[in-house]
């Protein structure tokens, strides 16, 4: 790539200096895990800490974002379900959730539910989810905990949640990275509006039926997390939908297209999170004065957030998750990180650093703890 050739790598000493705050932050975040009894948590914390710090160092050294971020994100995506299923199976011997657990408020709350519960909660003060408001011994993933986490994440990283925090997206990104070249090259970009349609439909239907319809009928990730116990034709049909959507949108299509198809064509939470995309101080811009256009950014964008109209407008669409793929691959440095209020292209690396420190601090805190927890279980099993 012309850009890589043109870019001088940052010196090792300067890269180390820039990585130091993340090293200290990671030590702080993993200090509690390191103090746990037994070898497994300590080793798991050390591995996760080293993994995150090395990746951040590489981001500083190579001035590339997407490639190194992806390692972390895919690791999070693949380790989360392992740890989650492990917990479910050791707790109740199965991944399915029996009605008894729903009645006792033991269903772990997932951030995907948030768009569906807001309107009914505002109108009736009732949360249409069989969880608990505050954490309990049998359900640490309480509603207040997860919503607070989402609120904090949204303020800090906005839509970058989808490229640093969403463990479901990590699975999809992993599959999209397997093939060298896409088998399906042309995608109808009108499907991009589908997540908005799904979002509108599930918000209205959840209000009308007083149940989280996306979780009940659509969510592909039920196939690898927790699903209602199959005891009727209806629950069997739901299970069939979960598995089909997971196989199609999370595994097969990402393998064939090298795109995050579930995020681009279905995910209502991603659409919901896009609303907050304009809130953050850092965004990605396309410097139209430098742009050819060669459409390399369009080809490399995992979520179809860049097309000709976006290039002309000088910025990606709202669905941009700030992964940095376009910035890293643009041969003319036309795709840049940007601090709002400044001239486009004037402080790109500074903007990237502001963005990376904030999102990596969040990623270490949230994703890092998930990775370390799963590694602890795997290490304990091996030992």
């Amino acid at each position, binding site marked *: 790539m012309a850009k890589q050739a043109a870019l001088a790598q940052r010196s090792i000493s300067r890269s180390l200096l820039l990585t130091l705050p993340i090293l200290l*932050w990671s030590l702080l*975040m993993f200090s509690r895990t390191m103090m746990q009894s037994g070898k497994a948590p300590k080793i798991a914390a050390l591995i996760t800490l080293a993994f995150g710090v090395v990746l951040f160092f590489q981001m500083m050294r190579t001035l590339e974002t997407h490639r190194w971020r992806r390692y972390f994100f895919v690791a999070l995506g693949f380790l989360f379900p392992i740890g989650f299923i492990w917990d479910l199976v050791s707790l109740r011997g199965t991944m399915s959730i*029996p*009605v*008894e657990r*729903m*009645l*006792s*408020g033991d269903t772990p709350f997932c951030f995907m539910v948030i768009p569906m519960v807001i309107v*009914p*909660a505002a109108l*009736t*003060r*009732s*949360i*249409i*989810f*069989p*969880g*608990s*408001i*505050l954490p309990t011994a049998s359900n640490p993933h309480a*509603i*207040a*905990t997860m*919503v*607070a*986490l989402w*609120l*904090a994440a949204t*303020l*800090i990283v906005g839509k970058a949640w989808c490229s640093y925090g969403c463990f479901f997206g990590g699975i999809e990104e992993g599959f999209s990275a397997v093939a060298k070249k896409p088998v399906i090259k042309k995608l109808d970009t009108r499907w991009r509006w589908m997540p908005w349609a799904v979002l509108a439909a599930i918000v209205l239907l959840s*209000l*009308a*039926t*007083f*149940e989280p319809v996306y979780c009940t009928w659509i969510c592909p990730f039920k196939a690898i997390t927790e699903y209602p116990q199959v*005891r009727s034709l209806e629950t069997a049909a739901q299970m069939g939908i979960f598995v089909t959507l997971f196989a199609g949108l999370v595994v097969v299509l990402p393998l064939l297209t090298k795109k995050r198809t579930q995020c681009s064509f279905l995910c209502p939470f991603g659409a919901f999170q896009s609303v907050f995309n304009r809130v*953050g*101080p*850092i965004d990605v811009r396309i410097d139209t004065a430098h742009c050819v256009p060669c459409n390399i950014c369009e080809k490399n964008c995992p979520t179809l957030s860049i097309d000709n109209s976006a290039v002309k407008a000088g910025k990606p669409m709202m669905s941009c998750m700030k992964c940095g793929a376009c910035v890293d691959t643009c041969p003319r440095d036309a795709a840049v990180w940007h*601090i*709002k*209020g*400044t*001239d486009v292209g004037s402080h790109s690396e500074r*903007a990237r650093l*502001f963005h990376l*420190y*904030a*999102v990596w*601090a*969040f990623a270490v*805190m949230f994703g890092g703890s998930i990775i370390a927890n799963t590694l602890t279980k795997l290490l304990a099993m091996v030992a």
Partner: protein
Amino acid sequence: MKKLRSILGHTGAILGLVLAVVSPFLLFGWFQHAIASAGLRIDPEYTGGEIARTIDRGAYRIAVYQPVWRRSPIQRIAPFVQLTWAPAASLPETVSDAVDLDGDGVADIRVTFRPAALAVDVASLNGKYRSVHSQGVTSFSQLIARVNERIVLRLPLD
């Protein structure tokens, strides 16, 4: 103006960093506290709603809940009323209780079940409620289940 916008942009970027740093120590706790104290509750479909009254049977207590009605014409769950027996460990081998559901002082149904089998017979005593034989979980509005230390019974209302 251009400089002011640039200063504001940089201030926003620094503020983002500050938020990231304080998030696990302050922000997260504040948000959690705010949500917890917002007066929200889990939907009655899952909790069974509010307890209307409790009946003390000596070794155990029966809680009679307020009926849960449909709040929308396309809500799938049928109206139901929930009753619980607790503690489950103190229940006799066969439980047979006459229960006043509507609080008018007159027993409306007789509930008979064996806690070990989780099969229940509900006999209507005055025609206000229908007789039901139920085993395990049929639906959210018709079930008998052991939930922690309670036996939960949900009876569909017509």
